[in-house]
């Protein structure tokens, strides 16, 4: 075994230029795959985190039917009972309450429809990034009675600024008119267009009073310690909550169900990426097939001599496979090292694409894209390259089995 290793290693350096070019081709493919996969996985993680942290949370509890039709009467009638159940669970890190009502907001000049959301300021701030994305003015404080924070696009449409007054007009839970004067306390810019264009937030207490909610809420939003905990938490919650007696039965929604487009969009992107990568790997495979073929055919005489000396066909195949594996492994090592270095560098500095801020915002991505190196992104691409290269090398190595010593020695 040892002698074969030595032979194989020396054989590949008999023609250093060719071996280096082949190694470079493999290294290039590996480097690109490590970087691109890290880049894609990094963007997906950012996209998911960004979308969930701004508003959605990891899971939401709502009354049956509220997700499809946001009717004000479909409430969680006893939120405290649900909260009690949530408190007990280690797989729920934190939770908050929200209520929503579509209403008219009028400034002095303009009137727009808006989704009025009642939030619990301190809980909401622990759960989402809303406090951090206040661009102007202040976030809501517990005890605020007629303060409102609104999205920047809504503020622009209404032509209002911090300190201006808005008139709210809507329909309360019991069908009566909900009306009030509100003062703009702050303006937020979440980066999610729909939210910035239509959402206005007031405190839960104000909402309760205006819309006559009598303590009920529409949504309980919760986060788990990590994304991996969401599934078991939801399964557990469904069981726990089914015992509660509410006016409307409760339903638990995971973030995947709340924003179905997100995962599907990521899938489309991932699948198209895989198609691109596979094509590239196949091109690389054919690119290096010639090297492996030549390594066999220009050494026909040499193999003839070895066969005549009593080396078995199996051992020759083995030797050739060792040579290809060496080339492949060296290339992979170089590619993985290079890819990791490149990824880590950009993971540190971030990638800024000039003029793409708006597109990134549309995809729910931060301005600086950060690839994220993981074991998966580091090894997945190179592993596929290794398998394909190995298969490529198999063909020439098998051809050796047909060599006959005398004929081979006479080959030119």
């Amino acid at each position, binding site marked *: 075994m040892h002698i074969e290793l030595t032979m194989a290693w020396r054989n590949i350096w008999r023609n250093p230029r060719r071996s280096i070019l082949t190694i470079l081709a493999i290294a290039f493919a590996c480097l690109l795959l490590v970087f691109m996969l890290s880049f894609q996985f990094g963007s997906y993680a950012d996209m998911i985190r960004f979308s969930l942290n701004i508003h959605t949370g990891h899971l939401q509890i709502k009354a049956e039917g509220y997700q499809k039709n946001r009717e004000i009467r479909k409430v969680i009638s006893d939120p405290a009972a649900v909260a009690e159940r949530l408190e007990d669970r280690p797989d729920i890190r934190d939770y908050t309450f929200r209520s929503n009502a579509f209403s008219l907001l009028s400034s002095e000049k*303009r009137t727009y429809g808006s989704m009025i959301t009642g939030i619990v300021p301190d809980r909401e701030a622990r759960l989402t990034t809303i406090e951090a994305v206040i661009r102007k003015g202040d976030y809501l404080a517990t005890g605020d009675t007629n303060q409102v924070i609104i999205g920047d696009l809504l503020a622009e449409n209404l032509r209002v600024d911090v300190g201006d007054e808005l008139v709210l007009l809507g329909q309360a839970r019991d069908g009566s008119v909900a009306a009030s004067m509100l003062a703009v306390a702050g303006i937020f810019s979440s980066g999610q267009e729909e939210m910035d264009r239509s959402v206005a937030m007031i405190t839960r207490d104000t909402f309760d009073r205006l819309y006559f909610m009598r303590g009920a809420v529409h949504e309980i939003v919760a986060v788990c310690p990590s994304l991996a905990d969401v599934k078991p938490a939801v399964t557990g919650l469904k069981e726990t909550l089914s015992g509660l007696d509410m006016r409307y039965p409760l339903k638990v929604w995971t973030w995947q169900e709340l924003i179905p487009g997100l995962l599907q969009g990521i899938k489309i992107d991932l699948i198209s990426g895989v198609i691109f990568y596979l094509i590239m790997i196949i091109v690389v495979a054919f690119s290096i097939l010639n090297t492996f073929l030549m390594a066999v055919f220009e050494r026909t005489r040499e193999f003839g001599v070895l066969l005549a000396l009593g080396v078995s066909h199996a051992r020759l195949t083995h030797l050739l496979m060792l040579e290809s594996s060496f080339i492949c492994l060296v290339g992979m090592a170089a590619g993985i090292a290079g890819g990791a270095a490149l990824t880590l560098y950009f993971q540190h500095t971030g990638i800024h694409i000039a003029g793409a801020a708006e597109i990134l915002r549309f995809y729910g991505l931060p301005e600086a894209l950060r690839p994220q190196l993981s074991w998966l992104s580091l090894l997945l691409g190179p592993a596929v390259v290794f398998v394909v290269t190995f298969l490529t090398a198999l063909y020439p190595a098998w051809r050796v089995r047909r060599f006959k010593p005398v004929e081979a020695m006479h080959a030119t």
Partner: protein
Amino acid sequence: MYLQLAWRNIWRNPKRTAVILTAVIIGVWSMIFLGGTMVGMYDAMIENQLATLTGHLQIHHPGYRNDPAVANSMKDPTAAHSALENVLPAGAVWTDRVRVSAIAQNARHSTGVTMVGIRPDREARISFIGGAVTAGRFLETGRDDHGIVIGRALAEDFETGLGKKIILMSQGTDGEIRSRAFHIIGIYQGQMEATEKNFAFVTLPAARDMLRLGTGISEVAVLLPDRADTGQVVTELRRALPAGEYEVTGYRELMPLITAMIELWDTFMILWYVVVFVAMGFGIINTILMAVMERIREFGLVKSLGMRPRQIVALVVTEATLILAIGIVIGNLTGYVSVWSLARHGIDLSVFAAGADRFSIPRVIYPALHLKEVVRANLVVLILGLLVSLYPALRAARITPVKALARV
């Protein structure tokens, strides 16, 4: 002579040539095919967006695009109309619209929508709505002052249907909230759910009457016979209309996000071409290099017989060019065939409809060929291919007769 010599040389080792040809063919095929898919995708995105009430160009009050409120409407569009009649090429069509944000309400639901007041006969020739009504009927000019056409998704959300009542509320020119009751006479299906939830169509007179708009309109949308003429028509219209009263905007500016997205993809495609090329470039160098190295004696011989280094370079480069040319031709042909065969039925992404909607990708992609894309892919392969083949060619040219002939 080079050509004949090179042609014979590359077939001296047919297996090797076949292998590298395969690499080039797959590379070129993938460029043509994936390029075609990309082009098909963004063509569909543009067309879809153009049909979704964009058109090739629009005329607004200068303040409207920043603040699309009823206050920023064109009070009397006659000047715009006559300018259009003078400037537009034959075959172009235009229509007036009132477009304001409104609140739609029925007994149990309310939500924000965009109310679009249209001239039905003209609108049908410009935007998607003409052919999109799948239940009931489209609005008719001269009647239907209380008829409304809404999207399927909105109808579902509102648990409503044909013949039912829906109330629209919006701010009138006097600043007061105006409302009007409409009967649903038609339900349309759009390309995206967002469209179906957003636009509610009523007749222009109904919208004007409701908003106390008089003869005012929000926008004029124009569809040209050829999209490529947009820039020129925009310039002419800007010259014909007073800038303080009218703003003329081409479709690229009307949909900045899609334009920027397409530019980004465009850059991405060039990068992809280069990546594929590099992948096969290593193979091309290696193969040509092998072909050169095993012919060292031969090169030494022809050199001692008086062949100049430059001629040797030319010969080797010609060999590489021939391989590339064959690969490019076959790659292109297979590329066209796959684009063409997929173009008939399209690539169906409806399994991922919600994801496609979110990223505003069309649900069915019909690959298409654009001359620009094809030329670009082929140029990348040809030019870079020639560049890399220079390396083995120069090595061949440097061979000295004595050394070469001394080799076994």
